[in-house]
């Protein structure tokens, strides 16, 4: 039995359909991240699970029980909001214990639960303060504490780290990961930050225009993006996408005389003359040292940016642009003509007309959704 099951959820506001049929089943202890840009429907879906919005059709089950029509307080969920949503005139202690207080839990039991949550989140010293006396990071810890004490079947997080500054966001991300590993709770987490999604999730649902574009483990999403959208959305810098044509069993890069080999696993799917989008992650590219091979990309270096751990290099191949993440000591300079290369296994092909990944055959391709 799934801890959380979402079946064919649709949601319309008037004539606008924001969710167009969502199906997800979540095992107990899974950390699902709903990833997408704003307006993709991820927060609406979370609100439907929480009971703060009503689905137009479909069903949501928690522990096998349908919870549509059940009041949010009876759904056995707890929610953490982007704006922390703390009660401004209550102390931290009462904020954390509020859900228990409203449920009539006895004072000493409530105190025990609050103290335990405060200890886990290292906010014991703040218990008697008001939210206005706390920093953003402390407030978010309180909000998480308020969810923790309830000990619900499913935790819902709505962009909980978006209001924090970069350094704090990193700290809280690790903190959340630690909490999840320790407590093994089922979590649904909404974010537009793909790094958050990659680092936290046991599975990611990439959403776009009210649909799930791809549902898979972070590795699958990163290594085997099902569509051009996923390939472009996950990973920073984004995956390089070069227009090409299948010519004589090779991939001819558009508006250049560069030809690279067509990996054998795509031989069946890539017909002669077909338009292709060649996807290569910037991290997969390196500066070629030996003679040119059929995996060489002759480029002209345009911009070199040192980020610290790597040199983000923008280069031109014909009229198309390419980004490569090179080691910081790579000897590249603006204006140079160099050759970049990559492993054949790192190459992905997409059909530009459908935006979908080309089906691959053989053993090289690992698991996929």
């Amino acid at each position, binding site marked *: 039995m799934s801890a959380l099951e979402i079946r064919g959820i649709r949601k319309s506001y008037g004539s606008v359909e924001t969710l167009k049929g969502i199906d997800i089943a979540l095992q107990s202890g899974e950390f699902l991240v709903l990833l997408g840009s704003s307006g993709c429907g991820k927060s609406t879906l979370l609100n439907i699970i929480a009971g703060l919005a009503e689905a137009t059709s479909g069903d949501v089950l928690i522990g096998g029980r349908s919870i549509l029509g059940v009041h949010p*307080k009876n759904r056995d969920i707890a929610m953490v909001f982007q704006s922390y949503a703390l009660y401004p005139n209550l102390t931290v202690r009462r904020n954390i214990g509020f*859900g228990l207080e409203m449920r009539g839990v006895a004072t000493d039991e409530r105190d025990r639960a609050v103290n335990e949550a405060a200890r886990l989140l290292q906010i014991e010293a703040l218990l008697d303060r008001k939210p206005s006396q706390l920093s953003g990071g402390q407030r978010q810890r309180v909000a998480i504490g308020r969810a923790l004490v309830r000990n619900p079947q499913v935790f819902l997080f709505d962009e909980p780290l978006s209001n924090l500054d970069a350094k704090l966001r990193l700290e809280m991300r690790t903190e959340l990961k630690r909490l999840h590993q320790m407590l093994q709770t089922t979590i649904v987490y909404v974010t537009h930050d793909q790094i958050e999604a990659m680092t936290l999730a046991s599975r990611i649902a990439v959403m776009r225009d009210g649909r799930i574009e791809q549902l898979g483990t972070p590795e699958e999403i990163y290594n085997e993006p099902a569509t051009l959208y996923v390939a472009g959305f996950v990973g920073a810098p984004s995956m390089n996408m070069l227009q090409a044509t299948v010519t004589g069993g090779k991939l001819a890069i558009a508006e250049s005389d560069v030809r690279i080999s067509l990996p054998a696993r795509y031989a069946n799917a890539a017909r002669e003359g077909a338009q292709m989008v060649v996807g290569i992650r910037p991290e997969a590219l390196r500066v070629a040292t030996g003679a040119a091979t059929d995996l060489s990309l002759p480029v002209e270096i345009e911009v070199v940016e040192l980020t610290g751990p790597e040199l983000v290099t923008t280069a031109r191949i014909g009229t198309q642009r390419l980004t490569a993440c090179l080691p910081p000591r790579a000897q590249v300079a603006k204006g140079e003509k160099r050759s970049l290369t990559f492993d054949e296994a790192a190459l992905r092909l997409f059909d530009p007309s459908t935006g979908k990944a080309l089906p691959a055959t053989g053993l090289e391709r690992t698991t996929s959704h």
Partner: protein
Amino acid sequence: MSSTWMTTRAWLLMLPLLVVMVAVIGWPLVDTVGLSFTDAKLVGTGGDFVGLDNYSNMLSSSNFSRTLVTTTLFAVISVAAEMVIGVLAALLLNQEFRGRAILRALMILPWALPTVVNATLWRLIYNPEYGALNAALTQLHLIDAYRSWLGEPGTALAALIVADCWKNFPLVALIALAALQAVPRDITAASLVDGAGPFNRFRFVILPYLAGPLMVALVLRTIEAFKVFDIIWVMTRGGPANTTRTLSILVYQEAFSFQRAGSGASLALIVTLLVTLLAVAYAALVRKTAGSAA
């Protein structure tokens, strides 16, 4: 530019307004203070200096104490009712339903009407011969015969309070409605998930955002209610048997009906002092509320 010149320029720019204020507020006030120490009549000569006689006579008169009680009753009951009705109306108009925009606009109407129009309207409603209230209550078999609501000492003040509430609750509702827009949706959602019912949601989620603005409304309305004149003057002129006579009416009667300018001036200053005390007390309260809500 030197700061002295900036200061001088600021004062120069304010000078015309200061002159006007001294002329229309400052001078009459000083003149009133002077007048209050004399036995001057409204017409005739300036009158003789009588020291604090006017004040001691006024403060020891039963008229004054009775009127003070009436005024306090009027102010406390009408303002309390306005606050409760205003907040309830705001909560209602904050719900989403069809026709909400029209209802919000309609609600402001009683407050937007001139007081005289409002008072005349309520006199018609209370009319002992053809008033709507009498008709309605008779048809509902709640009363046997038509009554003179404004003519009976037992009901006149209550009838006035109802009319004043009807006129002024929209102001409170408007302020509360504006404050309700500041309640974050997330906190409301969090309280739903936390299992807070309507009462607890009001107490822990809504009230903290409402308290500051409501305090301002309370200050404004109490001071106005304490100074009330127009609605009472149009509806009952302080009667019957002075049961609806408030301090402002008493000042008017003393100075203009009985033409005792000196005595009227002393009473006006006493009322001014009382209202100032109220304002200062409230200002402190507002500052405290604003401080705790931050």
